[in-house]
């Protein structure tokens, strides 16, 4: 039986009904409805940026007029009602009727191939741009006539003011004329792009080089909507524009950013389309060809665009919604009426067995002697730990956490008094200059230590699953899919579906390693070597007796000055890091101030943290330099 969680790409879903059943409206609300420039999303050019699997294509597919129409024509289902509400929130509907007619145009590598033609850049750009426009017009007409809801002659295009002179070049304002002309342009340009030996410039067919600018001419489309006339705004959603050559993209983007254009135009792309500098996100690098973000175009970041804590919280809601939609599609869950995924991955803390607890207690006693901590001091430390656990919000307040906290605090105490003068006549038990403190960082460090000392699970629970997904929907589904597979096994064996913390950790770690083993993108081997080494060091430092990194480390910090220099160079390391970011192996935080210095943090992604047993809390890092990274690369 197929596991729908593991069917990652929406491109593989073969029919609209299935797609609508499982698609979550959350991205529409999250990225569009709440966008500060929501009002301009259909007027200015929009760049939608995200890592692979962040849901760009799903968003575009959901917003297509074809699907919007099928949603609105059947509002009896709850799913469609939710989707309609989200579409309205994002501005696709007005008063329950479509406001825009959007089409998704995949920007396959075919368009990039035009850049290899032996012509002048202007001609090459024109050919690609006209092909995009011709295909958009054809797709629009296909979308509007889909399902025989309206005939071609019931569609009328409305021209932009002062564009009368250009109407002839687009085939007039009738749907039939526009279709015919678009087909003509498409055929002529396709034959040039697909040829192995391109024609000489003087032999280019006229249909391919005659002016063709429907985006500039067409402003709106008048259609028949359930018996009445409705005016909608056309929107072209160009998917995967990162496939274009950077210069080609610049030229096309500049052409599409012309203020005269009233056609909506969205460009969906992966981060790697940007330069390494932009992937590392310095605000100034986002400007392009004299065009300024927010003034000339709008950026929608599907990851990493705002406060990270807020983003994590938002993703958890979206992921829960997605998982709950997928759940009933698995027979074992349907039969048992399991509707909430969150309940199946409880964050109930694991408990050590009595024997293991005794063993741990003995280990802490041994460490007390090793650190030369007096019984009185131990008692004070125990009080600190117990007081923290008594008032802590976390659900994990098991006795073993307290013991491991005591062990860390004793080590810290020993460090802090190590330079003090020992008295010959009194018991050596001075108060440290910096008082000891038991807080969440010590508790989290203690859990990591317990994982090493006793094998106690570290990664479990729905929030951990979401955090490990780095706000990437596809990654979340992959990890959740592995958990679902284990739950199905439980069902077959007649056991409860909910997985214990140990089972969850086992599944997540195995899956994370499988994902990393399957990394297949440019420089994947280098990236793997880098993250494996970094993770190993972070784990080692996190496990020092005094847990000096608190929560534990999962990043390295490079001085900003060094990173800026690297990004300005043509060093291959920039490409390695760019692909690592773009494919979710690492995350980058710029301008992180600590110790009076400005750092660029290279953080390991959730999957790497799962695989190597690192904390998912952010902030703990090892100070390193570029030579360190270069050394790892080889």
């Amino acid at each position, binding site marked *: 039986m197929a596991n729908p969680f593991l069917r990652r790409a929406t491109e593989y879903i073969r029919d609209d009904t299935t797609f609508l059943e499982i698609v979550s409206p959350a991205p529409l609300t999250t990225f569009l409805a709440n966008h500060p420039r929501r009002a301009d999303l259909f007027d200015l050019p929009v760049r939608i940026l995200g890592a692979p699997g962040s849901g760009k294509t799903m968003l575009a597919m959901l917003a297509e007029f074809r699907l919007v129409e099928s949603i609105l024509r059947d509002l009896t289902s709850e799913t469609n009602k939710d989707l309609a509400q989200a579409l309205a929130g994002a501005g696709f509907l007005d008063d329950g009727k479509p406001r825009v007619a959007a089409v998704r145009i995949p920007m396959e590598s075919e368009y990039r191939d035009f850049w290899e033609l032996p012509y002048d850049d202007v001609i090459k750009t024109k050919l690609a741009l006209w092909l995009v426009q011709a295909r958009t017009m054809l797709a629009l007409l296909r979308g509007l006539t889909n399902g025989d809801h309206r005939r071609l002659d019931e569609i009328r295009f409305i021209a932009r003011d002062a564009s009368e002179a250009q109407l002839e070049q687009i085939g007039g304002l009738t749907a039939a004329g526009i279709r015919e002309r678009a087909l003509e342009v498409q055929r002529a340009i396709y034959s040039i792009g697909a040829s192995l030996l391109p024609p000489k410039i003087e032999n280019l067919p006229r249909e391919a080089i005659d002016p063709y600018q429907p985006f500039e001419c067409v402003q709106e489309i008048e259609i028949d909507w359930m018996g009445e006339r409705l005016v909608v705004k056309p929107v072209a959603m160009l998917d995967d524009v990162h496939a274009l050559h950077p210069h080609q993209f610049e030229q096309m983007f500049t052409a599409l950013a012309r203020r005269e254009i009233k056609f909506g135009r969205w460009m969906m792309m992966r981060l790697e389309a940007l330069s390494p500098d932009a992937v590392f996100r310095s605000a100034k690098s986002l400007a392009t060809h004299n065009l300024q973000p927010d003034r000339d175009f709008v950026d929608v970041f599907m990851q990493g665009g705002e406060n990270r804590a807020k983003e994590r919280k938002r993703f958890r809601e979206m992921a829960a919604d997605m998982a709950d939609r997928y759940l009933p599609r698995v027979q074992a869950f349907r039969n048992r009426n399991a509707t909430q995924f969150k309940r199946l991955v409880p964050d109930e803390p694991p408990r050590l067995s009595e024997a293991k607890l005794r063993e741990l207690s003995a280990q802490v006693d041994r460490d007390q002697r090793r650190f030369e901590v007096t019984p009185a001091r131990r008692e004070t430390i125990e009080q600190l730990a117990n007081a923290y656990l008594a008032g802590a919000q976390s659900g994990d307040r098991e006795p073993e956490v307290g013991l491991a906290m005591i062990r860390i605090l004793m080590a810290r105490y020993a460090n802090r008094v190590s330079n003090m003068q020992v008295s010959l006549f009194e018991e050596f038990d001075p108060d440290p200059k910096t008082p000891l403190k038991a807080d969440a960082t010590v508790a989290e460090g203690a859990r990591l230590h317990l994982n090493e000392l006793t094998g106690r699970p570290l990664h479990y629970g729905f929030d951990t699953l979401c955090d490990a997904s780095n706000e990437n929907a596809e990654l979340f589904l992959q990890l959740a899919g592995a958990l679902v597979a284990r739950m199905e096994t439980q069902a077959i064996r007649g056991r409860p579906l909910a997985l214990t913390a140990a089972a969850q950790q086992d599944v997540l770690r195995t899956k994370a390693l499988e994902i990393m083993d*399957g990394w297949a993108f440019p420089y994947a081997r280098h990236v793997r070597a880098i993250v494996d080494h970094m993770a190993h060091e972070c784990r080692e430092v996190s496990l020092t007796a005094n847990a000096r990194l608190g929560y534990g480390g999962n990043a390295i910090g490079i001085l900003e000055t060094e990173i800026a220099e690297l990004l300005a160079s043509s060093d291959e390391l920039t490409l390695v890091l760019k692909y690592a970011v773009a494919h979710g192996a690492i995350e980058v935080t710029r301008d992180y101030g600590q110790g009076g210095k400005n750092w660029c943090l290279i953080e390991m992604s959730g999957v790497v943290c799962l695989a190597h047993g690192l904390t998912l809390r952010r902030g703990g890092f090892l100070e390193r330099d570029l030579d360190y990274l270069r050394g790892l690369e080889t």
Partner: protein
Amino acid sequence: MARPYWQKCVAHFDDGVGEFIKSYFGQADRRCVLVAAAGFDPRSRRVAGLLAAVLKERLTGLFIREERGTPDAELIDAAEDNVKALQADVPSSEVVSVEIFGNDNAPVAGARIAAVIGNYPIADDVTDVILDMTALSIGIGFPAAKLLLEDCERRGTAFHIMIASNPELDDEIASEPGDRPMAVRGFAGVDRNGSALEIARIWVPQLARGRSSALNDIGRSVGETYKICPVLPFPARDPRRADALIAEYETQLVDEWQVDPRDLVYVSEHNPLDCYRTLSTLKARYDMTVDQIFEPSIILSPIGSRVMAAGALMAALEHDLPVQYIETVRYTFDPNKPLVAETSDMIVHLLLSGPSYREVAASATVDAPAGAQA
């Protein structure tokens, strides 16, 4: 262009290839151009060596060196050794470097090889052009084959494809795929955008060990499909190879692509004509089934074994089928590491065009290997 004579395509296998080379290329009036790869692959010298031994100074070579970023030092050394050996075998030859990626890391191999082949002068007295596909990547080999075949058909000269195949060695060569699936240059297929009928795509990926991630990306780029029909090698030298691939691709077959087990396509690992004929039959039957209902479209992704890829190449040329692939950024291979199981190369020869078909088309026999479906 329809090539009905491919139904009786002249093909030779293993020892038969050696005999064919001796008898056919041994004729004193044969003047040949060999186009082959000059890369790290240890099989690169095999075909050139066989031909050079018979043709000697009547053989001219164009050796393609595929340049990909910064390969491992051992692979560069292996490639250098192969170049020297090829030049020693074929003194009248030139080595041309072809950049596989542009300055934006986009695959540009097709356009570059087309320019190389388009500008390569083939003398009028050349009677045969041989493309050795053994170590050429699809992005280079397919466009080269198309251009050379069309040129040979124009001139009326013979066009041959030769391959030294070793599936066990293929398994030892790991590849790091790029991130941009695309149509092979010249193999974009028929433009169906103007069709009044809905397009129903069948994607035919050739499964190969360690390539699941690449195939997944290719599948996504194909978009919505009516069916996915994975190709598996059977009969194969290792009879369990198909089973092993099914196990390796379990997640894709069951969860992602949701392949109906009846849609698996089995083709011989040894005989490219089996692959060609199977795909041609699939095309004919599919066209007939969806006639007037859907616009049929079959998309091939022949990554993996070159023998099976050669069959897919013939089907793509014959029926103008699109070929979707993903370029390799880097190969990992230790030329000094002994194979897990020492296996010999299987040699295949195909004659795709030339005067022979005018004379012997009717009587041409296919010398198929034992166990292969001819």
